[in-house]
């Protein structure tokens, strides 16, 4: 077997060294494109995912979010939960929120919105809300008759303006009437307008936590969610376990758990396209390698016969073709990687921009790269070996003299 490998390598080596260089360049070029095709689109999708997951952390869910169990609308002892959570090592900050449904009215314009009751001072450590006030100011501890509205609702969103109903040029200082889902009406002064260029944010409004408690007549300590930020990103799952161990019996999700369904839906169509293009790419790649090797083998059928006639084992011959196609593919992958990385560099510097402000930078997924490389190498061995195998089985006389 070792002799077979040595001889196979010798045959492949000489055929590479003294074979047609133009063909080699062409083969490598095409293979590098196939590789690119396998990894590029997923990288872009990865970039979009990162963008979306960033939103998930920064606004609705934090790193970890705790929600009521079962059919409960509220976490009943949110303060207790908060106390337990804050005591867990690795937790950086935590706060409670109350999400409710409401309609907002301003000069005969009515829009539906989720209004989130927040504890303003705590949000600075939890979310980006306080930092995306594009007009006016964020809520303060004493803000009881004030509201923050998203830019889409206010009608000042430059990105989503056309798509949604709005209140018609509401400004800081405007008065809006809010009717809560339980029928209670309140009038608020717009304290600020927030814009995150993210529908979940810009379609929302925000008042003081106490205000919601008051409107709904809740006992203190009720919350629809407890939002947690941790010290170290990437340890969400461990932290989730730790929080549970700390005695929190509510439902605990990481941002990834939460966004999964959302992202999955958003990405599903893209993912399907990606899978399709991957599949087609692989088939085309395999077919190409197969054809290249097959033509090569047909051209060298006589040589294969000669090699066998002088006593070279069929196994060495098949191995030589496996080596040959592995070589083609390795060089192709190498060239493809260079191409890919330069494209990545380019897009890091010049991200694709969506909605004018959402910058998508493609993500390099090492696992995906390894997977693609392994797939292509495996395919190359199969595609290179199969035709060689069938020819090497032919009788010597037929291979050399054609009969």
């Amino acid at each position, binding site marked *: 077997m070792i*002799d077979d490998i040595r001889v196979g390598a010798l045959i492949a080596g000489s055929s590479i060294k003294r074979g047609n260089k133009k063909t080699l360049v062409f083969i490598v070029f095409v293979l590098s494109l196939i590789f690119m095709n396998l990894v590029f689109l997923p990288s872009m999708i990865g970039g979009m995912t990162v963008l979306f997951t960033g939103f998930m952390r920064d606004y609705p869910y934090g790193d970890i979010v705790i929600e009521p169990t079962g059919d409960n609308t509220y976490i009943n002892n949110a303060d207790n939960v908060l106390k337990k959570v804050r005591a867990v090592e690795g937790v950086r900050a935590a706060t409670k929120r109350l999400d409710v449904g409401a309609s907002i009215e301003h000069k005969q314009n009515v829009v539906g919105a989720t209004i989130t009751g927040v504890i303003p001072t705590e949000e600075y450590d939890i979310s980006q809300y306080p930092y995306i006030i594009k007009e006016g100011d964020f809520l303060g501890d004493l803000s009881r008759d004030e509201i923050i509205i998203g830019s889409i609702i206010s009608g000042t969103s430059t990105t989503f303006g056309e798509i949604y109903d709005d209140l018609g040029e509401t400004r800081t200082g405007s008065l809006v009437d809010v009717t809560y889902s339980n029928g209670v009406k309140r009038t608020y002064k717009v304290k600020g307008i927030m814009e995150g260029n993210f529908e979940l944010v810009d379609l929302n409004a925000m008042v003081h936590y106490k205000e919601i408690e008051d409107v709904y007549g809740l006992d203190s300590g009720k919350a629809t969610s407890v939002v947690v930020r941790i010290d170290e990103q990437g340890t969400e799952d461990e932290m989730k376990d730790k929080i549970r161990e700390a005695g929190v019996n509510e439902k605990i999700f990481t941002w990834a758990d939460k966004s999964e369904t959302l992202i999955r839906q958003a990405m599903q169509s893209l993912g399907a396209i990606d899978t399709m293009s991957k599949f087609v790419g692989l088939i085309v790649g395999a077919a190409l390698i197969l054809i290249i090797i097959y033509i090569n083998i047909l051209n060298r059928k006589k040589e294969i016969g000669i090699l066998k006639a*002088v006593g070279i084992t069929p196994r060495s011959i098949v191995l030589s073709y496996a080596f040959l196609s592995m070589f083609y593919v390795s060089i192709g992958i190498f060239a493809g990687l260079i191409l890919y990385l330069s494209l990545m560099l380019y897009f890091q510097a010049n991200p694709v921009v969506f909605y004018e402000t959402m910058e998508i930078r493609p993500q390099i997924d090492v696992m995906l790269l390894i997977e693609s490389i392994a797939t292509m190498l495996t395919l190359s061995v199969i595609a290179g070996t199969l035709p060689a195998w069938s020819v090497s089985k032919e009788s*010597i006389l037929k291979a050399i003299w054609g009969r």
Partner: protein
Amino acid sequence: MITVKDLKRYYGSGDMTVKALNGVSFEINKGEFVAIMGASGCGKTTLLRILALLDDATDGEYTIRGLKVSSLPEAERSYYRLTQVGYVFQDYALINEMTAAENVYILSMMEGKSKKESYKVALEALDKVGLKDKHDRIPDELSGGEKQRVAIARAIAKKPDIMFADEPCANLDTRNSEQVLEVFKDLNDNYGQTIVMVTHEPWHVKYVDRVITFQDGVLVSDEWVEEQ
């Protein structure tokens, strides 16, 4: 050294059967340089391919040094081809992407020798055919005669029991043919190499010891050549 008994090789079947060899018997002893002659289509190539284990006889017996090689399984025949039998093709049959040396030493490597040792063996063989200084040329950079000498080097590098050559000079001009035949003669005279060569050319006879003549698949004469 080799014994052939009532060897038959038929092509096709029924009415279309071609009896390329129709019962051939002879013996060749160590150190002989034998020419096989006869009109075109009389079965010379057919015989040689069977002797070199490239083809199977329809019937009959073939032994090398008493071993019945005609009934060996393919893997062993392959090993025999590699180690015991040299074959020189009419059209050289070199691997075009390999240098002269590589064409020769690939066989030693197949036998399990180290690369260095294989290279040494190859250079020795190339030296015997007078091509040591052209060992790193590829076939395209060699003349027809030189290519055929590389092919001979490949056949003799393993020091085979017996070497077969099917019209080795058919594609060569007289000068190149003479060079090749001189190499054969030298191998036969100085190294005792047993050689069986198919040829058409009457003037080749002066290089050989013995001439076997065929006609329509049967042996019609077997004569020793007088030393001149």
